[in-house]
């Protein structure tokens, strides 16, 4: 692939730079003006001098663009934001700001019925953000040369005509796609400074994620997603993310600790239980997705009924929880209930896995799909009329009492350090411990002899067995371990949601967790990585939750996204290095050289 460094709009570089910086600052400034005249638009954008709602996003985007532009000026103190050099990051940041500003304008026009509802400030935001994009297009950008473009990729037509047009514009007209810059070696820092940097980065991350979870209306969440997507892409282009990644790899224990501290700090940033319940459910979903990643990502076994193991754990915990609706009148302490749930799920994992894992992988997929469905049907049937009364049928087991751990009642409010932690905060923190256990298991097993054997089986089972690996035993181990972790998460889920019903555990439903969404979280995030499923699960949980206007077409969009993702980025958002190489293996070209052009040598003949 050949590249060139040229501006899209041919203007002097210096002029473009000044222009971009000024326009970006001006865009940020427009956030201080009124965008609309009425307080009817969510967030109330009518004040001069104080940004609100979507305006915060434009402000942030404008400032990031300005900082990145100034960093390329060589202004000391800012250069660290752009270690790889190049101006593509500036363009992405400017695009993100413009996208979020125009999204706000369109949202105002649609919500309030007409563009007349915009105040001059709104128009100004739209205009200045576009000027910043224009300025960024005048900067020398890393582009592909015109003759190095391959055939157009009509796959994008699946994303609609607009999707294709955008793809065409970016990759073929502007020639901007997929160019990576080499990072210069990092400056040596004392290790305490590096640790501080990691902590600062995770604090920013906590702030960003908290902002996303706390968004109160769909417009703000959409804007947040737009800006977050562009900003992450921009920072990846400038090399800042790679720098950070290198740091976290170097100080892995610190990074892990910081990540968990940031996650544990979340309930302390909340004033009510409204969003901690969302966060607790995200954690459950993410933990189960991580468990599935052991099965799918490491061992390469496609499990389509994984949510049933969560259900087994949840039902087991509910039955021994002392709920008045449970036919077994016992109340286990949490540790015993957790063990029961995990053990029950593991037993089912072995029962399902033992006959099928001896066969080709495809059988496992269909058997697990069947198991997921059968689990739901069976739980429905064990209601006393069509079967023995165990589960109360479709009514489920309600009124599951709150957990008491060492005398600590998770259902009550507690004051910790002057901040009140409600019921969901308690469960969130409990779940975080379980997430930590699963992360630990994943990391330790993944890097062990067993984990390497799983990867070998995934890549080529025949070759792995020839190397002396017992394929069946190890696959069964992966499957049972995955089931066991899901069961463990299920025991907490039963208590968080008060009630377990069969319909919580389906193959595909509009709300996660269900088997299809779990699989999608793993694939979207990245198979075989730890952070991938966590990110994927968070996105897949928040998007349906926050964007209720999507609700009718949510599953449809989900299915289309799955198909497109498999075609375009099968390795997921956060790619495992090995997966990335595997999925983008260059296809060996057919012998296209004309025969007479290659003289036959003796060796060739």
């Amino acid at each position, binding site marked *: 692939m050949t590249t060139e460094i040229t501006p899209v709009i041919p203007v002097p570089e210096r002029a473009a730079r000044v222009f971009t910086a000024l326009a970006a600052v001006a865009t940020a400034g427009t956030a201080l003006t009124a965008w609309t005249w009425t307080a009817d638009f969510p967030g109330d954008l009518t004040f001069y001098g104080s940004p609100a709602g979507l305006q915060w996003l434009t402000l942030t985007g404008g400032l990031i663009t300005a900082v990145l532009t100034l960093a390329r000026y060589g202004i000391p103190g800012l250069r660290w934001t752009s270690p790889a050099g190049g101006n593509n990051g500036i363009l992405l940041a400017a695009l993100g700001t413009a996208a979020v500003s125009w999204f706000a304008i369109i949202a105002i026009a649609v919500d309030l019925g007409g563009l007349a509802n915009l105040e001059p400030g709104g128009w100004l935001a739209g205009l200045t953000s576009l000027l910043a994009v224009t300025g960024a297009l005048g900067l020398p950008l890393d582009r592909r040369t015109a003759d190095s473009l391959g055939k157009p990729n009509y796959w994008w037509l699946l994303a609609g005509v607009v999707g294709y047009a955008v793809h065409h514009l970016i990759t073929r007209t502007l020639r901007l796609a997929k160019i990576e810059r080499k990072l210069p070696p990092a400056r040596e820092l004392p290790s305490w400074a590096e640790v501080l940097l990691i902590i600062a980065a995770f604090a920013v991350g906590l702030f960003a994620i908290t902002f996303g979870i706390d968004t109160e209306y769909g417009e703000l969440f959409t804007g947040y997603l737009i800006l977050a997507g562009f900003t992450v892409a921009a920072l990846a282009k400038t090399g800042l993310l790679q720098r950070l990644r290198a740091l976290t790899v170097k100080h892995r224990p610190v990074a892990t600790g910081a990540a968990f501290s940031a996650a544990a700090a979340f309930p302390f940033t909340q004033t009510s239980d409204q969003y901690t319940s969302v966060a607790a459910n995200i954690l459950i979903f993410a933990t189960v997705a991580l468990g599935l990643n052991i099965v799918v990502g490491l061992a390469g076994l496609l499990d389509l009924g994984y949510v049933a193991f969560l259900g087994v754990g949840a039902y087991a915990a509910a039955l021994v929880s002392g709920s008045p609706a449970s036919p077994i009148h016992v109340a286990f302490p949490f540790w015993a209930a957790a063990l029961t749930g995990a053990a029950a799920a593991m037993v089912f994992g072995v029962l399902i896995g033992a006959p099928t894992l001896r066969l080709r992988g495809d*059988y496992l997929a*269909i*058997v697990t799909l069947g198991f997921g*469905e*059968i689990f739901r049907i069976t739980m429905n049937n064990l209601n006393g009329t069509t079967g023995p009364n165990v589960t109360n049928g479709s009514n489920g087991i309600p009124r599951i009492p709150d957990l008491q751990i060492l005398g600590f009642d998770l259902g009550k409010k507690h004051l910790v350090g002057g901040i009140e932690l409600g019921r969901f905060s308690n469960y969130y923190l409990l779940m975080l411990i379980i997430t930590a256990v699963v992360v630990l298991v994943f990391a330790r097993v993944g890097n062990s002899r067993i984990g390497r054997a799983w990867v070998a089986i995934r890549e080529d089972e025949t070759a792995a067995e020839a190397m002396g690996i017992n394929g069946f035993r190890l696959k069964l181990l992966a499957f049972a371990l995955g089931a066991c972790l899901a069961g463990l998460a299920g025991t907490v889920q039963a208590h968080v949601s008060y009630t377990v019903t069969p319909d919580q555990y389906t193959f595909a439903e509009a709300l996660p967790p269900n088997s299809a969404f779990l699989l999608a979280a793993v694939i979207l995030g990245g198979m075989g990585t730890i952070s991938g499923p966590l990110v994927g699960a968070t996105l897949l949980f928040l998007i349906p939750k926050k964007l209720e206007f999507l609700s009718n077409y949510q*599953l449809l969009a989900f299915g289309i996204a799955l*198909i497109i993702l*498999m*075609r375009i980025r099968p390795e997921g958002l956060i790619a495992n290095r090995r997966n990335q190489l595997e999925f983008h293996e260059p296809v060996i070209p057919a012998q296209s050289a004309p025969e007479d052009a290659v003289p036959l040598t003796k060796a060739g003949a």
Partner: protein
Amino acid sequence: MHDLPQQLANGLILGALYGLVAIGYTMVYGIVQLINFAHGEIFMVGGFGALTAYLALPGGTTLWLAVPLMLIAGILVSTLVAVGAERFAYRPLRSAPRLAPLITAIGLSIVLQQLVFSFYPDAKKARVFPKIPGDPFELASVTIQRSDIFLIIAAPICMLILGWFVARTRSGRAMQATSQDPDTAKLMGIDTDRVIVMAFAIGAAFAAVAAVAYGLRTGQVDFRMGFILGLKAFTAAVLGGIGNIYGAMLGGLALGLAEGLATAYIQHIPGMHLFGGGAWKDVWAFVLLIVVLLVRPQGLLGERVADRA
């Protein structure tokens, strides 16, 4: 046990339905080693295609005319969808790692379900499908619904045509060759892409026939009907030995019989009186699948094949 003949008849009719859908799984799997998860939805789409044709006909059209037209419409819709899916979703992934096409198939199955759910008029609930009116036939102690006559006639005809096609025609033999060894088949001048499209198309056509039979039998079609039926049909394909078209039909019949008999008689086994009846029939079908995988994983008619590396 005096109603045994009746139960056998019910089981066989249900089994023929499973068998027709199972052929789609088995043909595609035999040639490209892909479990086409979306096949259940191809079946469902065929049912809705047939329903559309019925609704488009003027009221009072005799079923002698309506049923063939519905059949044609269903086959058309199913085949188009299946061939389109093959062309645009599966073919680009043919050299991708195994998980990719499988996940695409799941995505496709969700998309098809949701398209019908969202855009077919009134498809949020089950839609009424015509039934063949009139009294059921009585043969000795066996009662057969009139609507089932369609399936009893159509299934054997379909099997005969398919058997003739695969064994006697050039295309059929190309199909056999491709399933035995795609690379060598290609070297012998067979257009394997065409063969794959053909396998998808035939499977879809059979699924559409099954969908019409299903609609006539149950009097309704709904957007979810492909999921469980697809699962059962796949079980039938495995039961008969996946890759073998006669095995698929045999597996379907066996599964239908087992399901029918389990529904009727399990409750008479001492200690099992709560586990019979329609509520448990899917569970028993699944248990049968597990048992078959344990004792005869290659299926009834399948041969043990070495992994093709």
